[in-house]
């Protein structure tokens, strides 16, 4: 099987996302079911492989530290230009927000083209920095919309963004590798 197929290990999330709206406490909004669920499932949290030896897939990797807490993540990005597909695997330790965010991203990526990823990433970034005022575009963000509540907690924004930053960086590396060819 092509190497990227080995990266797909979990099916589409069935996470419950009833929007309880204003009746939810800030804490419940922060720790939505989807998040708690992904924090446990950890899609894509697989042994890291390093660059694949063969195939037409481009590879990049990035290590990121959250300076506020010292938690770390290492992300590997795989890009098969032919299929126009992105994949991610990761290893790391951190809070439930950071683990869930890595998991959600890993799961979503399998469905995304690079352009679409850029859009989603921009939307997610904006949502996180909205200081609780933004509304998640579920169409665009999919499961990542569940992180809406994080934006009310400035101290946790970096948690939610950690894996995204790492993937973005790893993907840049992969593209650079492509150009190097």
């Amino acid at each position, binding site marked *: 099987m092509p190497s990227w197929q080995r990266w797909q290990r979990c099916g589409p999330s069935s996470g419950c996302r009833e929007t309880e709206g204003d009746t939810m406490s800030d804490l419940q909004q922060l720790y939505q079911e989807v998040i*708690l669920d992904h924090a446990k499932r950890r899609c894509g949290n697989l042994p890291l492989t390093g660059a694949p030896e063969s195939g037409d897939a481009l590879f990049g990797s990035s290590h990121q530290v959250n300076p506020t807490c010292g938690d770390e993540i290492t992300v590997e990005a795989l890009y098969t230009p032919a299929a126009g597909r992105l994949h991610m695997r990761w290893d790391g330790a951190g809070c439930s927000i950071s683990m869930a965010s890595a998991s959600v991203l890993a799961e979503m990526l399998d469905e995304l083209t690079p352009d679409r990823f850029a859009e989603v990433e921009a939307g997610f970034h904006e949502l996180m920095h909205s200081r609780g005022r933004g509304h998640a575009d579920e169409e665009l963000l999919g499961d990542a919309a569940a992180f809406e509540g994080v934006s009310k907690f400035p101290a946790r924004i970096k948690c939610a963004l950690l894996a995204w930053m790492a993937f973005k960086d790893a993907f840049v590396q992969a593209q650079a590798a492509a150009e190097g060819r």
Partner: protein
Amino acid sequence: MLSPADIDRIRNDFPILDREVGGARLVYLDSGATAQKPHQVIDAIDEFYQRRNAAVHRGAHQLAVDATDAFEAGREAVAAFVGAAADEVCWTKNATEALNVVALGMAHASAGLGGAEAQRFRLGPGDSIVVTEMEHHANLIPWQQAAALTGAQLRWLPLSDDGQLDLSELDTIVDETTKVLAFTHVSNVLGTINPVDRLVDRARAVGAYTVLDACQSVPHLPVDLHDLRVDFAAFSGHKMLGPTGIGALYGRSELLDALPPVITGGSMITTVDMESAAFMPAPQRFEAGTQPIAEIVGLHAAVDYLSYYGMEELAAHEAQTASRLIDGIAQIPAIRRIGPPADEASIAAVSFDVDGVHAHDVGQVLDSRGIAVRVGHHCAQPLHRRYGLTATTRASASVFTTEADCDAFLAALAEVRPFFGLS
């Protein structure tokens, strides 16, 4: 022992305790990071700016005289509070600066600054500096820097499994090569109170200088630096009900007068020409530039406040709070506390790991109940690594902490694992 009425009265002095957080009353259990301030401290700062603000030790005018009086009265009060003479207390911005002044002062001496009398502080290859594995980064990294600058070797006293210093190798770790033994009086993570006497005895036996990080002892215990026989000590105002922006370096006069200053500039010199400057004796030589004057006034009010109740009394209250927290935590399943056994003396700073829940998530849940605790490595990464952790949750108490505070905290803590679906 403080009566419940005393504690009520104390609580009324702290305006911030009226605050609600997320609909719940504030239960502030993060005094180990920074203390809250009684209105006496806030008012003293206010009054200073409104009536007496001026540059000190400089002007001939009345405001300058008033400000200088306030400045030196603060020094006397703080010195008396820690059992030191006034000229043994130098102002810094925080304890971190104070510890750096000692470490870098020694590095400067080693580079030849400070003349012949500074040579007693010379460090070089073949010498060793000893710290402990429980140090706050503030009493570790400056010594790493001093070692890097001088070629001295850095060693450390390890931790035991039960959160105390393992002194079994004390005599080999602190040996004839040791020039400095720097250690904390009380661990900011574990609450452990270290055996200062034993460490000072050993340091003296080998002729090493002792540097005490008194950040967590001065706010919580009666401290007499002369009795403790240490050579240098550091503490911070903001942890002892005082303002931010003020700390103190203590040193024996004879040593302070010989230690080269690190930060140089105005108000610490006798004569200056373009090529050289002569420095004043301590404490002034360590007080370059405009000092945190209003902060000193605030700290003065803080030590008056603490002294009014008495550190013995406050320490007894602290011990009681520590027990309540430690015993309560022991009853909650799947929590691993790091620190000394319950029957050892400690301050009420209690750190723990909740199995399966990251410390930041623990803190978040507690915060939603109005309970403010600290999460993370508490500026003590090596200590955490020693216990196989990267982060813990810490509850740390203050003079105003009540049994109700402890109980609210314990009740909320018991809900944490269930909240995350763990039984």
